[in-house]
């Protein structure tokens, strides 16, 4: 089975002894778009960093049917596009082109392929002529879009996004929501943006103190005011 995320009984403790994940199990089906919500420090980012093997905890993580191990890590990283929260971390090259080309370059593709992938990725985020731009001079919304393009160019099966709408103005947020809606990949999106969750995702996973406390339809979550209040969320 492809395009899946399959996490089983994952536990992770940071070197300083803080337990970030306690027996997390999660299954995301092909093509499904799932929201991951929960308070700050709940373990959202930690979980995401496990999905392409940056962090390694106890338990099992399978992505696209492949277990994450030393030998499969390159393959996994090409299949999972992980977009970090701060685009200044994601965009480390001098120009937009270099950054979007980084992933395909390390996949070992021939140059013409790399160029056409960069072209397509920039088209997908509607920043066609941005190749020569210097990353530092972009606006917040543009940076987020370029950050997404940097993983789209790798043609991933799964997109994992960490707080994609954080710090965006309403217009940039709106166009990002449209973009996420139109992208066909399997998606796991961590966010505090509850209105976006209600609009875009049928399924929501709530994580708090390293444990999954809710996993079900967004509609039923929104109806459960007690649960929401218990984990520090508000319905707008």
């Amino acid at each position: 089975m492809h395009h899946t995320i399959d996490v089983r009984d994952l536990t992770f403790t940071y070197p300083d002894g803080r337990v970030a994940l306690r027996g997390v199990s999660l299954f995301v089906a092909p093509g499904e778009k799932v929201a991951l919500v929960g308070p700050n420090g709940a373990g959202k980012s930690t979980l995401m960093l496990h999905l392409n093997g940056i962090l390694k905890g106890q338990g099992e993580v399978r992505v696209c049917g492949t277990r994450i191990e030393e030998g499969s890590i390159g393959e996994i990283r090409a299949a999972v596009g992980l977009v970090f929260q701060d685009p200044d971390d994601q965009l480390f090259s001098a120009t937009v082109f270099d950054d979007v080309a980084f992933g395909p370059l390390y996949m070992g593709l021939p140059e013409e392929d790399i160029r056409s992938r960069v072209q397509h990725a920039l088209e997908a985020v509607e920043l066609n002529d941005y190749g020569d731009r210097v990353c530092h001079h972009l606006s917040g919304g543009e940076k987020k879009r370029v950050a997404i393009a940097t993983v789209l160019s790798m043609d991933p099966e799964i997109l994992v996004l960490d707080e994609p709408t954080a710090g965006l103005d309403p217009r940039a947020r709106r166009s990002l929501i449209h973009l996420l809606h139109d992208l066909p990949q399997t998606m796991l999106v961590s966010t505090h943006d509850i209105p976006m969750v209600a609009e875009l995702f049928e399924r929501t996973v709530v994580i708090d103190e390293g444990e999954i406390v809710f996993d079900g339809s967004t509609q039923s979550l929104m109806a459960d005011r007690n649960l929401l209040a218990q984990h520090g969320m508000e319905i707008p």
Partner: protein
Amino acid sequence: MHYNLTDQYRHQTSFLHGLDPRVKVITAVGYILAVSLTPEGAWWAFAFFFLVLCLAVYLSQLGIFFTIRRSFIALPFILAALSVPLITPGPVIWRIPGLNWAVSEPGLIRFLSILLRSWLAVQAAILLTAVTRFPNILWALESLKFPRVLVSTIGFMYRYLFVVADEVTQMVRARASRSARISGAPRRSVLWQGKVAGAMVGSLFLRALERSERVYAAMLSRGYDGCIRSLTRFQMRQRDWISLGLAGLLLIVPLGLGWMV
């Protein structure tokens, strides 16, 4: 809130802008070397070098005074050579009134030569960065077999200098916003202010360290495996080769002139 460390690059569609960056890097470095190797007091050679520079500035279409105007930034560094006329032995031509320090003739010649060399070299570097985009300079260095680790270190520095400068601006503003003082209260000591500044530098360092870890994770996520790779950007065309040859000629002639005369 954006720190605009002014980019040195000035966009134009001149002949110089259109050259392969490798040609420009080689020529600029060659120029600096040639100027540095020209013997002291070879004024004709220096004049020739200045004309070569003027020709390049003319070809860049940035205005003939462009590099001269910017070259004053480097003026303070000349101070380092200020003692040269005083400590070089030789016939004394002048004594500083009041101090009675002797200025020797060979010392003065040496000082003026250093002054001219650095002034010309700085202008060459200014012109290079004005007509070549920074990423292209990096690419040129890399394809000229400059050590890749160094090139990518410079690349990251260029990318994150702006980000760190933004963070500094934010911190300074945050400090200023909380630096209130009740009227009549005594001023804090310099030592105390120094401590605050020190703590700011420390936390900036920690932030940079944490960021470097996140950036590294982002690189790993996209398949980074420890070797640095890059795409070809430019192909040497006929006019690039011709320019390189002409530039070499224009540098060798004054250098030879300087040593023969």
